[in-house]
């Protein structure tokens, strides 16, 4: 069996009394696109820094394609490319120089000292796609343009695993589209993508599975369909005649009436609610699955 792209076992990081990440168990199969959600300070970046071996774990362990993150960082990094949320680059280098440096640094680690060449044609294609002027110095780039340099540097490697930590901060909507296109391309090519983000539409559009982190703990992990199944369905009914009392119906909660329109949430089987509605004079009935945003807010107590 091929090794998992990412595997963590009880991965924990504590800073004094503060637990930044608490016994994380996570498995990401090769070829998967996994979204990693959580509000600021939930431990997303800590997870990624542990996986990259930039900080050491207080407890537990993490593996990238079966390679220990802490003990074999160089071997693990050969298989991955990383995009940080903040593009800290060398202000005196130009975009082209930075891409050359980062490409060579990535390629120099081939096993047995061999060199892996970055596909320069693909790099140039990405530069065009992201509309980057590579002759400019990093100092003269806007935040979004610096972010593009990091994205191109990661994508051009075609590494087996892309680790993306809020990669689109500062990108305009057009570039956001270019980014999504590139991630889909990567997935179609069989690359694994681990995407930490709080742009929920991005995660919803790209990811097969989603993990939600809260105060250092993984509280949800599954496909969107699974998560929706566990969550409430929103039902909205418009009545012509008398409005029945829905509050006692099994599975129904958060009933809100607004004139002739009643909104409620249903958990579990929907049949009891339909029975009640069938007896009333319903002119319009809408039901929809919760969006990722609603799931996320529900998880954090902001929603129903």
């Amino acid at each position: 069996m091929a090794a998992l792209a990412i595997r963590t076992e009880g991965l924990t990081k504590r800073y004094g009394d503060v637990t930044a990440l608490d016994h994380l168990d996570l498995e990401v199969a090769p070829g998967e696109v996994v979204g990693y959600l959580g509000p600021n300070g939930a431990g997303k970046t800590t997870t990624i820094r542990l996986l990259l071996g930039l900080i050491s774990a207080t407890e537990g362990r993490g593996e990238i394609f079966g390679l220990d993150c802490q003990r074999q960082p160089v071997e693990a990094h050969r298989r991955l490319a990383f995009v940080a949320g903040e593009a800290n680059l060398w202000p005196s280098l130009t975009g082209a120089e930075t891409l050359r440096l980062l490409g060579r640094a990535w390629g120099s680690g081939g096993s047995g000292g061999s060199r892996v060449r970055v596909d320069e044609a693909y790099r140039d294609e990405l530069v065009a796609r992201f509309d980057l002027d590579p002759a400019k110095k990093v100092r003269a780039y806007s935040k979004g343009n610096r972010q593009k340099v990091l994205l191109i540097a990661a994508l051009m490697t075609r590494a087996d695993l892309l680790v993306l930590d809020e990669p689109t901060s500062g990108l305009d909507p057009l570039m956001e589209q270019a980014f999504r296109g590139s991630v889909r391309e990567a997935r179609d090519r069989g690359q694994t993508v681990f995407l930490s983000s709080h742009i929920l539409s991005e995660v919803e559009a790209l990811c097969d599975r989603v993990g939600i982190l809260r105060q250092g703990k993984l509280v949800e992990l599954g496909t969107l369909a699974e998560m929706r199944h566990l969550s409430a369905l929103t039902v909205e009914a418009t009545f012509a005649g008398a409005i029945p009392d829905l509050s006692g119906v099994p599975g129904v909660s958060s009933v809100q009436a607004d004139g002739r329109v009643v909104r409620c949430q249903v958990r579990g089987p929907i049949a009891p609610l339909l029975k009640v509605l069938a007896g009333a004079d319903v002119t319009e009935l809408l039901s929809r699955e919760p969006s990722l945003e609603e799931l996320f807010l529900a998880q954090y107590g902001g929603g129903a």
Partner: protein
Amino acid sequence: MISRLTARRAVRSGAIFGYIFGAATASSAISYTRFYKTAAQRDALAAAYGSNQATSALFGPAPELQTVAGFTVFKISMTLILLGAVWGLLTSTRLLRGEEDSGRWELLLAGPVTRRGAVVQALRGLGAGVVALWALTGLITAVGGLDASVRIAVWPALYFALAMAASAVMFLAVGALTSQLAGTRRQAATYAAWILGVSYAVRLIADAGLGLHGLIWASPLGWVEELRPLTAPAPLALVPIAALTAVLLTATVYLAGTRDVGAGIVPDRASRRPQLRLLRGPTGLAVRLVRPAVTSWWVAIAVSGLLFGLIARSAGGTISGSSVQVLARLGSRGNGTDAVLGVCFLTLAVLVACTAAGQITAARSEESAGRLEALLTRPVSRWRWLGGRLLVTVVVVLASGVMAGVFAWAGAASQHAGVSFGSLAEAGVNLVPPAVTIAGVGVLAFGVWPRGTSIVLYALLGWSLLVVVIGGVGGVGHWVLDTSVFHQMASAPAAPPRWEADGVMTAIGVAGALIGGIAFRRRDLQGE
């Protein structure tokens, strides 16, 4: 608001420097009275240094060595004048251009304040820092002056402090102006450092007994010297000091209003053709990144070496009899030219050590600014990155040492001073071990206390320099002297290099680098 924010930081560092200045002055005055008790001892000292062109060139003339005041000025003032200038230019470029670089300035400028108004406010804050420097230097000098054997009155003490602050205020203004001209903090500090270097070189030539004393008026540091605190006060020299400061500050405020926030007056080309030659990996990148700073240091070392070589023969001719004994206490042996060069090489040793320290702080700033992550998240091990930086450091330091020797030889040879190339090249290499120790201790700090890297480096450097300068003339216990890397170094070419001491220093440096490297490999990366 800006005024207060700037003042808080400027006053803090001004007070620290003022404390150091005052303490150095007072301890120097007191140690003189303990070490040179009799009139005969003092006359011997005066005979040794009074007409010694070498020390005059380096530290300024020494007119009244029979008095506590005269000795104190001679021994301490040039060091403090230079330190004050360095403080001034670093503080103003940090708090003006540095704040702008970081983007914090923009937040403040979004408030109800113009660009000129903001600079005026910041300058006022910096002014508070100078006042703190002056007040503490004066206060501690005055308190030290109360000692019955020292007896420096309050007014002369305050005037002495004014002279020290004068150099700080001029270079503060220089830094303020270069902060408008340059587009980055480093660039602004480099411009200002060049102006300081030229000022020092001009002053050195003026005091070197080459018949060019009139040149003293061409150097801002010369004006400070001409204030003649404690010996023969000449406040008239305050006129050019005040005039230069006023011109620089006016230009600063004017230019601040004519340029964009975040940009300099000297245009920084935003685009250029890529230069890819060195960008093959972390070590090539290190070379590329340190090139501008190292070039500046190398020019400074080459020019200093050349100047020292040029003055060595004429200065050495003035040394005889008791002079030799006194120079011997500074570590110099032999006669004439060699003895002078021995003392001069101490200055070169400081420059070479500064070059080494700069390499380690540059490595740390890669980490603190988050740029190191871009390399370490690729298949680049921490050993490979740090090893590359250290390799560059070793090469830079070795080349600095050899260059110091070769240029000193070139200067001396042009004057037919009769010193061999071999002995000066050897003296140049002799400058390397103290720098290696400093770099090694710096790497140790980088490994175990990364945020304290530059504090440890510059504390060790400053301490070593202070100990060897104050202790050189006597009155400091051996166990204190032994803590100075510059004291451990033989003063070649005046004395033969002490290879075993050099070996120990190198071993300490290598051990520090190894332990620091192991600690770095195990620790978390840390930002600012």
